């Protein structure tokens, strides 16, 4: 089941590249095909979700095959509630993004075939990352996701795309390298303890030495902190987001960056509980810095894409804070937050991306009074913004409040500082809305036209889910709670 | 034995100095050949000394490689001569960093 789920987009991507490339109509066929593939993946994922036993906390639908025997590497995949949440996020966002990206202007007459194919590859790899239960397989898939993003930014982005792609690659490779060292270290430890195996189930049986555990944990954390992005390792994100297409930004921030926070749970807490406990005060402090710093930097940004990227830095701070507070409430909240943030940031990136491509500039000052000529666009920007500032009734509020309430029970000062973030969030969202949408329509902003039916069709599912999960988040929480309880149960 | 090796060393040194000091690509090329044959001589000499065929085998390999190299090398030199009218190695500097 899981292998099928991961294979559908990857095989689909190969087929899309084989389709004839050339004029617009042929490229349209490729886009249709890619959308079709992503919808098939969505269907498969929904079937998997329907078969998933919600009450069990452990891994389900496990598939295991020996892969590289001397290394103890297995092709071993399985789903738990946390993984399924993120898989669902991936398969929901991919069709939305593909639909929204139908008219993306690609630089230098590049063919759309490869563009959409890379997105599908990314989807498949992301699913693999979220389901891998073997450290080696996880590492390979984790690093492999860099390739599609590198090309998506470097080949299809806007101004300064190559530099941005390089920045992205270097940061993430550096983090990945430290993780590689830890992966090698895992082999040594596990081979010492008996038969070498990278399977999570085998690894979690091993009693690490205290220092070994800390070092291995830090190796993994380095990669995750860059990916997540945790202050001060976040600076690649605004650079990359400022040069990527909106579709790429969505996949990068909403899906792939979640690998960082997801990894912290599965390959941090689950594998190295002792070290995670040791590091949690420091990481929580950095997370709170992220929250405030990201929000302030967003307020100070003059470029819309950078602004949205900084809001994500702030939100990732909340997610990490919740994970390392180690309470059922906060950690469940964090997992839900990953899902909700994916949706709300996707909506924000897509709608601002449309604004920017219509106007031809990403500067906030290039807009003004747009609501007059584009009421639907301004309405969706407002909803996306309100979800970003965690308005009660919209999905992100539930998760943010769980994170804060859970954190409050273990560390009052940090929770109080983090709560200040809600005021800053209101400022960055409303300032953005005020400066771009309200006031008299400026001469230069007259070129902006309202959303087309296709764009509305792409954004509506996001809006519906954001509102729906704001009032009825419990199905998602039911999915997450048992798995989180199991992970937290392993902590000292 | 020592005579053969001495000859080989002398030939090799002549070739090496030629490669370093001459500008004419053809001469440089011939000097390279000279060095190759100097080593061939050493190979054969050792083969004779030890009474087995390993050295001779190696000499044959060198000859084959040298032949192939001559074909490619001469072709390049002729191409350069055609395009520039000169075969001085100092003038072909386009590939500098």
């Amino acid at each position, binding site marked *: 089941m899981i292998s099928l789920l991961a294979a559908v987009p990857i095989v689909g991507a190969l087929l899309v590249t084989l389709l004839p490339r050339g004029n617009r109509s042929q490229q349209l066929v490729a886009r249709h095909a890619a959308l079709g593939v992503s919808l098939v993946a969505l269907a498969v994922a929904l079937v998997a979700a329907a078969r998933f036993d919600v009450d069990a906390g452990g891994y389900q639908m496990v598939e295991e095959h020996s892969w590289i025997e001397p290394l103890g590497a297995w092709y071993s995949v399985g789903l738990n509630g946390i993984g399924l949440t993120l898989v669902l996020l991936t398969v929901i966002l991919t069709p939305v993004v593909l639909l929204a990206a139908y008219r993306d202007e690609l630089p230098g007459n590049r063919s759309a075939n490869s563009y959409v194919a890379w997105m599908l590859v990314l989807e498949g790899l992301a699913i693999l990352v979220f389901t891998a239960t073997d450290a080696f397989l996880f590492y390979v898939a984790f690093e492999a996701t860099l390739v599609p993003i590198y090309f998506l930014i470097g080949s299809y982005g806007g101004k300064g795309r190559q530099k941005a792609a390089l920045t992205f690659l*270097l940061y993430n490779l550096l983090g990945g390298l430290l993780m590689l060292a830890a992966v090698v270290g895992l082999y040594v430890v596990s081979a010492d303890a008996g038969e070498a195996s990278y399977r999570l189930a085998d690894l979690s049986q091993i009693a690490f030495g205290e220092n070994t555990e800390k070092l291995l944990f830090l190796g993994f954390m380095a990669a995750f902190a860059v990916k997540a992005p945790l202050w*001060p390792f976040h*600076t690649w994100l*605004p650079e990359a987001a400022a040069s990527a297409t909106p579709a790429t930004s969505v996949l990068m921030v909403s899906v792939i960056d979640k690998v960082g926070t997801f990894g912290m749970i599965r390959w941090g807490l689950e594998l190295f509980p002792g070290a995670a406990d040791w590091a949690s005060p420091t990481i929580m402090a950095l997370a709170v810095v992220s929250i405030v*710093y990201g929000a*302030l*930097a*967003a*307020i*100070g940004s*003059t470029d819309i894409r950078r602004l949205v990227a*900084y809001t994500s830095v702030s939100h990732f701070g909340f997610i990490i804070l919740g994970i390392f507070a180690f309470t*059922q*409430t906060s950690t469940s*909240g964090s997992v839900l937050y990953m899902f909700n943030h994916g949706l709300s940031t996707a909506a924000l990136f897509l709608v601002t991306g449309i604004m920017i491509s219509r106007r031809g500039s990403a500067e906030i000052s290039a807009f003004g*009074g747009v*609501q*007059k000529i584009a009421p639907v666009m301004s309405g969706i920007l407002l909803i996306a913004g309100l979800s970003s500032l965690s*308005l*009660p*009734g919209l999905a992100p*509020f*539930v998760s943010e*409040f*769980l994170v*804060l*309430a859970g954190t*409050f*029970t273990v560390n*009052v000062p940090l*929770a109080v500082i983090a*709560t*200040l973030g*809600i*005021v*800053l969030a*209101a*400022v960055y969202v*409303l*300032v953005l*809305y*005020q400066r771009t949408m*309200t*006031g*008299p329509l400026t001469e230069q902003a007259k070129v902006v036209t309202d959303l087309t039916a296709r764009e509305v069709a792409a954004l509506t599912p996001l809006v519906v889910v954001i509102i729906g999960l704001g*009032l*009825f988040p*419990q199905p998602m*929480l039911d999915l997450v*709670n048992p798995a*989180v*309880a199991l992970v937290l149960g392993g902590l000292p | 034995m020592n005579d053969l090796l001495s000859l080989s060393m002398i030939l090799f040194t002549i070739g090496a100095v030629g*490669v*370093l000091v001459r500008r004419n690509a053809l001469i440089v090329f011939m000097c390279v050949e000279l060095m190759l044959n100097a080593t061939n001589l050493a190979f054969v000499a050792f083969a004779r000394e030890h009474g087995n065929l390993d050295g001779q085998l190696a000499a044959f390999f060198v000859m084959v490689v040298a032949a192939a190299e001559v074909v490619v090398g001469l072709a390049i030199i002729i191409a350069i001569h055609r395009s520039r009218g000169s075969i001085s*190695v*100092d003038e072909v*500097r386009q*590939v*500098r*960093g």
Partner: protein
Amino acid sequence: MIIWLLVAFPALGAALLLTWGKESDRFGHLIATAASAASFVWGLVLFVQLLGRDHDDRTVTESLFTWISTGPQGSGAFHVEMSFVYDPLAALFVLLITGVGTLIHVYSIGYMEHDDRRRRFFAFLNLFVAAMLVLVLAGDYLVLFLGWEGVGLASYLLIGFWQHKPSAAAAAKKAFVVNRVGDIGMALAIMLMFKEFGTTEIAAVGDSVAGATANTITALGLLLLLGACGKSAQVPLQSWLLDAMEGPTPVSALIHAATMVTAGVYLVVRSNAIFDASETARTAVVIVGLVTLIAGAIIGCAKDDIKKALAGSTMSQIGYMMLAAGLGPAGYAFAIFHLVTHGFFKANMFLGAGSVMHAMDDDVNMRHYGALRTALPVTFATFGLGYLAIIGFPGFSGFFSKDKIIEAALAHNVWIGLATVLGAGITAFYMTRLMAMTFAGQKRWKDEVHPHESPRVMTVPLMVLAAASVLGGILLLGDWITDWLEPVVGHTEHHEVVIGGVELAPIAVSALVTLVVAAGVAIAWATYGRREVEGETPEKVSILTRFARNDLYGDTVNEWVAVRPTMGLARGLARFDQHGLHRAITGFVELIGEGATAMRSWQNGFVRSYALGVFLGALALTLALLVVIWR
């Protein structure tokens, strides 16, 4: 009892109007009004049912579904039911919100007739009513917070309804952000409840208070007060309310006078268990109420903008309610009583002001009014009744409700009591000033303005509200309201007013207040009624007036204490992040790049130098080999 229907009508109305296309422009306002009216009728039905129940059996809880849960209830995990509680306090609010709300819907049909976004306006009004009902019906603090922020959103949308005006957009943003500052208090209070009591259900929190430490209770009280200050525009979070007058006038009437801004008072009264247990928190509430009461009244005296004068008055009146709520069991019921009567007469006057603006081509400057009593007879009559109610003319609703608060305040502390008496005098002053400048004196409007009475659809709500302003006092008949609220707020204690060892009868207090009010009226009449009012705002005025005109420099303080430092820090950080931190990290990468560039010069293109390199390398290798062998 199906409580959720109350919320469902307006919520559905809002959803329908927001998603339905242009074709609903013609009848959208009717749907919205019908939704609000249906909610009111259902509220009446429930109210009658509640009346039929026993005195002690008037709390109905309805749990719809589990909203948020990370574990089973009572296990220490976070668990919130989407639950509604319908009790006497909620019942009163439901009637006030839907009743006044429906009237304002009706009024808006006329007021917004020529606005091409009228449908959306009504959608937002419905959204507001739904959110406000969630707020007052909530059985859990987090559900209350949902309504709390919902009304904040509706308020944001409605203040900024004329988004093309930069001032309206700025005012909307300001209102939301200032409210968010208060929300920090609310959010932290809820977190603290969860930490200490393991639950955020209002009733359960009330039960848990007995077992909590004094510090916890005080902290809870102060945090809730911070939230209340934001929503109710109490000092120090008052500055948004005056700017909020940028919204269409029915919005000011509904949200920024009658209902939403009283949410803070509701919160304090609803959390009476917490405030009963903490003297410090109650004192803080009294101080906030007192300061706002005076500050609002002073601001109201200096404004020439009719809506801003009324807004200052609103601040001041909510200060009264806050103060009453801070008096504890002696004041809760009177706070609510005043809240209800204020809802009637302030909505009446705001709508009246809207009617005046309607007649004056949207001019809000009272110095351009004058002698409107003949041109707008209905508006004048209804406004006049509201005026008599707010200054506390004997027999009118405001007389009873304000009197009770002053009496309770005097009994609590003489000085606080006297301050409230002074407040009543200032109220009489600024309201008389407003009446005189608007309706009395000579006409000061320009000739091209032709004041005309508003259409029926606008005047009928005025009449209904005026009647309610006059008759609101009957709620006190036979102490009905204190009895009614007793199951929620406890028995209303009565303390005798003792000044200097002399016991004052209630009638003496009333007489004192009436005297002060009469003095206020007289001074105002002498200044603005008998003398000619200048057509333009005079520049040379006393420091006090200038102080009041600038809203007591609240904005300036905010600007220098909060806005500028934050924005400066934000801009600095954004620049630092892009050019400092990021550069520092990429700088390391560039260092490597430069090293590579330096090495590049070795590739000079001379074949022979490459050959030399090869030979030297071979030589070095050979020598190294020889060294190894030799050793």
